[in-house]
């Protein structure tokens, strides 16, 4: 099973990295860039768990470790791994 997890800042939380990258892109001449948000992407390979178990376990991992739920939200999908 492969979990693909996206962790992003919640709405309204200052995204200082996104701001800096936005500036840089505008300075480089990409004036079409209106907004930039930076987040994390993780792939976690799981073994020996059913999809249902994986659902619960990955949610737990996100809550406990992978996302800082005070300021970040997360979402994930599960795929059978090749």
């Amino acid at each position, binding site marked *: 099973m492969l979990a693909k997890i996206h962790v992003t800042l919640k709405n309204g939380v*200052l995204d*200082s990295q996104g701001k*800096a990258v936005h500036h840089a892109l505008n300075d480089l001449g990409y004036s079409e860039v209106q907004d930039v948000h930076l987040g994390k992407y993780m792939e976690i390979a799981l073994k020996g768990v059913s999809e249902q178990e994986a659902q619960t376990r990955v949610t737990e991992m996100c809550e406990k470790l992978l996302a*800082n*739920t*005070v*300021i970040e939200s997360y979402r994930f999908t599960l795929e059978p791994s090749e």
Partner: protein
Amino acid sequence: MTENTPITPEIVAEHGLSPEEYARIQELLGRDPNLVELGIFSAMWSEHCSYKSSRPHLKTLPTEGPRVIQGPGENAGVVDIGDGLAAVFKIESHNHPSFIEPYQGAATGVGGIMRDIFTMGARPIASLNSLRFGDPEHEKTRYLMNGVVKGIADYGNCMGVPTVGGDIYFDACYNGNILVNAFCLGLAKADRIFLGSASGVGNALLYVGSKTGRDGIHGASMSSAEFDDSTEEKRPTVQVGDPFTEKLLLEACLEIMKEDWVVGVQDMGAAGLSSSSFEMAERAGLGMELDIDAVPQREEGMNAYEIMLSESQERMLFVVEKGKEEDALAIFRKWDLDVAVVGRVTDDGIFRAKENGKEVVNLPIQTVVTGALKCDRPTSKPAYLAEMGTLDISSRELPVNCGDALKRLLAAPTIASKQYVYEQYDHMVRLNTLVLPGSDAAVLRVPETNKALALSVDCNPRYCYLDPYVGAQIAVAEACRNVACAGADPIGVTNCLNFGNPENPEIMWQFQEAVRGLGDLCRFFDIPVVSGNVSLYNETKGEAIYPTPTIAVVGLLNDLSLHCTQGFKQEGHLIGLLGFTREELGGSEYQKVFWNECRGKPPRLDPKTELMVQRLCLNMIHQQLIQSAHDCSEGGLAVALAESCFTGPKPVGADIGLSDGMRTDALLFGESQSRIVISFSEESLPSVASLAKEAGVPFSVLGRVGGQQFKIKINQNEIINENILVLEDIWKNSLSRYGNRVA
């Protein structure tokens, strides 16, 4: 919209205002406030901004002295250090945000205190932090510690301000409420200190820094309330820091402050735009008008309420002379900062704010700033003291093996080396750090002079729990002792008073006693308290933290080459002790580790003896008679001796002989005050002994530096004989082993 919402009792309660306070607002205004105005009152009258519980006590502190340029009442205290220079410093808490989100909470705490310093026109040159975490075995402690340390590191490192010291304690009383107190010190020209005053009718009000977002709305009210289960829901009020923007803000501010048309400046801390604008106008006795729409905004659709109360970080309010607006804008734009003229100084003592051309705030400034009901909170001596105040140690067992006992203490996270922590902090940037973290006090050269400053922050909360008066005195004494061990004379104090709920008379009694102890000792030592901060409501579900009056002391060395460190320098040197050991184990780390209790009386402190010991130590350092000086604190004499063995140029053993009739554990691990371990060459012994005698300070030779073993004999019986490298490994690596674990 917001100004039309009718004010119901529920809304008043949600704003943390009592019915009496609301009645007072109605009476002072002669009308009902609108919602924006209520929000402003709520923030400004919160404990955090108004100091309503603490002020009557704080007024008793000694705040004056020949060196004092600015005492309490501004963003930071200012002390003259000669050569036309001034040291600007303050300590501030960020406890509640750091418990909710350790990384961002600690980071923004550092950002906030640095702004307090450079707001005064000073360049920050050093930071300290004082941290209190719960029981190391508590499930959240490791996560909180690692998050807080990383937050401090990332912010301070990016700012290019060295973090040169601090202190860390672990105790179960902080399980539900950690403490993060951040100290910063800056240097300014003594005649170029900037104050937060908005004078000069017609002068322009400039907003500069980051854009305003919806962060931390109600932050000031939140930090003035206890935690409960609904704290989780308050989470989005946590602010996020951007040290990069703050670094630009720092450089831009120092650049613009070279101009003589800068009238006043204040950072936007708690209660953001509201507190900064009201306080600046109040100090000048004038009024202010503000155009809400001109405030740079990060999000769309923000209203006046949100803009007035947002606690977005990295923002400042400047007042510049009329006609200089364009010059000011140009400097800030050079540094790529958001900047706008947002208002003017007026002459009528009223604060007016317009949104979309419509007046949404019209408040008398003085009323808002100084009108909070002073609370004369009742005090009563805590019931626990009767029970906890007694300790009969005759019933407690002696350690079977003193070597093992020493190892256990060296491994205790409160005693173990904090290298794991300070290695994550840039403690060298700006090339001033003469004594790196790891000695009693950090020492920083004052650039372009031959002087140096020594810094230390201290507070033993267990002593304060058992006797807040003595505990606070010891905190001051110890911080001064640390600074003296570095060769410096204490010249100023700042403090951060962390306590539980002041509405509880027992907590208020702790507060009153601690302030009394702080004041009495500072008066006796003749050191002014020039700044500080109060953090109340540090409790979770009715469980208060131990009273924690954190004290930071700044010391001055007139000749930087005469500084001293705690490590033994050379084999063959003699080891001596200044001061006197009593049979005292109440409140000690030994008592906690071995008997799992905190009871009895804290160690005795005799201010006169303390002062004599410190003066003597300073004298010996200045006469270059001694090569090391180390204060005895947690873990007592045995731990202090071991630490001096570990912290020299390389680890070295020692051969110690003690003779005394008291309990072995009290002799080795008791925490009697006013003691300093020194080392010196054989030739210096006569001078050292005669100086001590002249000073009337007890002095004894304990042994000699050398070898690979750490040996202690008591009355000729060897009771400790351990390999120094084994001890060093335990002491040096225990905290990193703890911190690097996951579960």
